[in-house]
């Protein structure tokens, strides 16, 4: 468990303290995939670097499994960092070392593993990230996705309990992003590793995260389970991110709504109700006619969800609302 207790960070610029992270309380549970989403400069990079103290905080306490890491001396800190893997946007592999040597590097630095242990572990990791055939290549000979897989294998070498991902998919194309995210999800499930992932893409959060914190200007403005935050965003920044990820033009949508007749509802289905043939039966029971203005069915991590914007004309609206709620559908009246 990672606990932030009034953690803050500011930088001294020309004698003035510029805050990068305002005092923040936050808890990340063991074994969850926790997303931090924000625009560049929102402070998410700082926040993730506080967890392994690449950036020391200027105030507050950071507790990892009930131990305050801000009090560590340099050698304790180095030992602690071996238990926290990190992967990066630009991979940060050593260009002078082969794939196998890159993966072995953190184990060699630790100085507590025998040569045969290192060799075995490297082989195991190469297999896990499907790069066994590339063991003796140099990073420059690999594609972006392969480089990030080397980065992941390297981060896992010393069997960490936490994995920090700093915009790990931002330099990758959509297809490669998908495969890297799947690898991260597998690792999380199979090893029970806690993953803290920062990104500026809500889509990444939607696919792999359990919970998410939204950051804006050095503050966490919204935090909660991904389905909550994603389907019912409260803060304007969060809404921007969600609309962006669904490629919705907000103004265009408003214009479309203006043209529609009757009441406008937004229905949110989650889990099993997504696949129920609900609209037809509700229409029959309530006598309401509806047209679909916009709609989307997708997944949040492994949970299916659907979101429909409907305009309803005639019939008994109250009956329709009751029917929706009885079917466990979240209803929001837009007009």
């Amino acid at each position, binding site marked *: 468990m990672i606990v932030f207790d009034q953690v803050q960070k500011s930088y001294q610029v020309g004698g003035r303290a510029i805050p990068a992270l305002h005092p923040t309380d936050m808890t990340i549970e063991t074994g969850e995939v926790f997303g931090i989403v924000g625009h560049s400069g929102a402070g998410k990079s700082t926040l993730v670097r506080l967890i392994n103290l690449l950036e020391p905080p200027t105030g507050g306490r950071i507790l990892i499994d009930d131990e305050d890491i801000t009090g560590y001396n340099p050698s304790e800190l*180095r030992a602690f960092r071996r238990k926290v893997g990190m992967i990066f946007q630009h991979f940060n592999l050593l*260009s002078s070392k082969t794939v196998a040597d890159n993966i072995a590097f953190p184990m060699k630095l630790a100085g507590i593993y025998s040569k045969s242990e290192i060799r075995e572990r490297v082989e195991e990791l190469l297999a896990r990230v499907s790069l066994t055939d590339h063991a003796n290549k140099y990073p420059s000979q690999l594609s972006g996705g392969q480089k990030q897989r080397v980065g992941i294998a390297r981060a896992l070498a010393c069997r960490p309990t936490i994995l920090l991902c700093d915009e790990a998919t931002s330099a990758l194309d959509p297809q490669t992003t998908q495969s890297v995210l799947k690898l991260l999800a597998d690792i999380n499930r199979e090893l029970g590793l806690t993953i803290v992932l920062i990104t500026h893409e809500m889509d990444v959060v939607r696919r792999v995260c359990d919970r998410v914190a939204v950051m804006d200007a050095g503050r966490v403005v919204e935090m909660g389970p991904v389905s909550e935050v994603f389907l019912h965003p409260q803060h304007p920044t969060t809404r921007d991110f969600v609309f962006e990820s669904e490629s919705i033009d907000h103004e265009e949508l408003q214009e479309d709504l203006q043209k529609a007749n009757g009441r406008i509802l937004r229905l949110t289905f989650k889990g099993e109700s997504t696949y129920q043939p609900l609209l037809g039966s509700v229409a029959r029971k309530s006598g309401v006619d509806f047209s679909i203005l916009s709609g989307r069915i997708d997944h949040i991590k492994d949970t299916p969800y659907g979101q429909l914007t409907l305009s309803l004309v005639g019939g008994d609206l109250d009956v329709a609302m009751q029917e929706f709620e009885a079917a466990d559908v979240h209803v929001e009246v837009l007009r």
Partner: protein
Amino acid sequence: MEALLSNVDWSEIGWASWDTLVMVGMSLLFSVLIGLPIGVLLFLTGKRQLLEQPVAYAVLSFVVNVLRSVPFIILLIVMIPFTVMLIGTSLGVAGAIPPLVAGGAPFFARLVETSLREVDRGIIEATQAMGANVRQIIFGALLPEALPGIIAGITVTAITLVSYAAMSGVIGGGGLGDLAIRFGYQRFQTDVMVITVALLVIFVQVLQMVGDRLVLYFSRK
């Protein structure tokens, strides 16, 4: 042909070439041994680096700049008393080596500093995140990553030392430069001058070629 090169004593040329090789080789060795740690220190103590130390950096940087700003011909002369103290003579091949190192080491140190700065900061950060200490970051990440740049720096330093070594002929340093000055210049033996210059050109070409090959071999980018 014989008449054209009537003044050339080939065994003399051979010895002078050997002397130049020894002067450049020895001074290069010491320049690297002294310049490399100074270059690493310059890098580490620099602004926003691992061991940021403004005062240490300023002092080190000042000493390096002073040595680099003195024209080598002056450095040769200024160094004489120190050279005598150090190895007992300021003449010959041995006498030329201390001033060559004094000129070569700070030059090389700057080149090392520059090539270390070229190493991606992300790599240093990643190595830190793995729990490396400063020594491990230097020897495990920084130096291997900067190796091609450092080899290119050694090549440039070696070539600079060839020309410095030739200059040391002025204070009786020996080698091809000494030959060129004593015979080619003072006795107007143009043929000796042409041969020594030709040999120096070949020497530099070979150094550059070998250096480039090594850089290529160690570049994995």
